[in-house]
């Protein structure tokens, strides 16, 4: 893989965020409430993608600050969403603690640990870990409560699958980046490019999944 594939996958991811964002707007207003927090996550992602495209790709500026602020908001927002969806009491209190901790850690990482201009991979890894765990717990509750006969027509199934896969990819990418950039003596850019190309592709897929969930919700299948 080379930079062509990396930039193509980044553009594809950008297009998919736009697709998911527009899909949300297609849902009738009265039925949007259940997905408002996912839409907030999409808005943050869209903002980050736009700033990355304009600032990073066109103007060649370091746009890590916006990406870091987005990361700081994404974890708590999606955890709050899961807190609404999962009915286990223990999960609810754990999620509340995790939301506060992630937010606090995000600020600390942004200001003191990795700094505003470096990619805040620590907080992103923590976000991914919490969201992967929440995704698995949500699936557990889904199998217990059986709210639908056919999973494929249930919007929350697609949202959860997308988040689970998307953040699994992010978890892997941020861990690998940390290792490649900080631990290795010689920078292994080929692996770095491959990792981020895979990350972007999975990200694109997960946004398509979220968009599809919104389309299902628009058809009234929830």
């Amino acid at each position, binding site marked *: 893989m080379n930079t062509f594939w990396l930039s193509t996958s980044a553009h594809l991811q950008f297009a998919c965020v736009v697709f998911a964002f527009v899909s949300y707007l297609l849902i009738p207003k009265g039925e949007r409430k259940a997905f408002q927090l996912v839409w907030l996550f999409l808005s943050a992602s869209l903002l980050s993608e736009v700033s990355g495209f304009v600032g990073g790709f066109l103007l060649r500026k370091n746009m890590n600050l916006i990406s870091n602020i987005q990361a700081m908001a994404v974890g708590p927002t999606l955890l709050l969403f899961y807190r609404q969806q999962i009915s286990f009491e223990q999960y609810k209190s754990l999620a509340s603690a995790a939301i506060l901790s992630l937010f606090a850690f995000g600020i600390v990482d942004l200001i003191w640990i990795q700094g505003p201009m470096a990619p805040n991979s620590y907080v992103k890894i923590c976000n991914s870990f919490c969201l*992967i765990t929440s*995704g*698995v717990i949500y*699936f557990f509750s*889904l*199998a217990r409560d*059986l709210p639908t*006969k056919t*999973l494929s027509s249930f919007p929350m199934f697609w949202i959860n*699958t997308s988040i*689970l*896969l998307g953040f*699994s*990819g992010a*978890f*892997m990418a941020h861990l690998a980046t940390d290792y490649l950039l900080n631990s290795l003596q010689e920078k292994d850019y080929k692996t770095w490019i491959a990792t981020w190309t895979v990350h972007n592709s*999975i990200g694109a897929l997960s946004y398509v999944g979220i968009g599809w969930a919104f389309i299902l919700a628009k058809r009234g299948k929830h």
Partner: protein
Amino acid sequence: MLILAGAIVLFITFYQKKMVEARLKQQLLESQFQQKVLEATLDSQETERSRLAGDLHDSIGGMLSAVRVGLSAIARQMPNPNAMDAQKQMLDDTIESVRKISRDLMPATLEKFGLIPAVRELCERMRITTQIEIGVVELGVSRKIERKRELMIYRITQELLNNAFKHSRATYIEVVFDFRENLYLIVEDNGIGIDVKQEEEAGRKSLGLFNIRNRVQLLGASVSIDREKKDGSKIIVCVPYE
């Protein structure tokens, strides 16, 4: 991590399918069990009614008739044979009441001649007691229905007519049996109509409506109220042929 997430998604998809199937199977078994319990309850109710009707008619009715004959014989030997007329009349009324209760409990006409003659007889008796005109209309060719189902349809008709008498303030009631596709039982009146909300509220408390619902469920039938009818009410029970 990615492979693990993918595996979890696949696992959940298959597991959920299996769980849904298992739950549906369980619900089906539960509903079949409830159906059987309901059937057994109604069966025992009908058996008890039948026994009681037989006892009333054959035993008490028979004894009362014998007393009536004895009383007439005694009256004939008295200096004034008309002195016992009031007592004889009272006894006649009692015999008639016992017959009526016995007929209400288990209509012999239903067993001997089938559903329509039994309903006609029921309507005639009700007309005499309530002074409300009742018409029975038959559409299509009547089909042979299993005795048990026939009895349930008869009971539903009886309950719907009772409700109409009690609440509708109608002057005319029509009972229609439409045998053409499914068996449609339609009870229509020209009374004050049905407040569906109030009826639903009452349905939770009323034993009559509860019994109708149970029988409708056992018959695999459906009951609906014609909301478009402005003057009076129209209740439609659709019983599928087995």
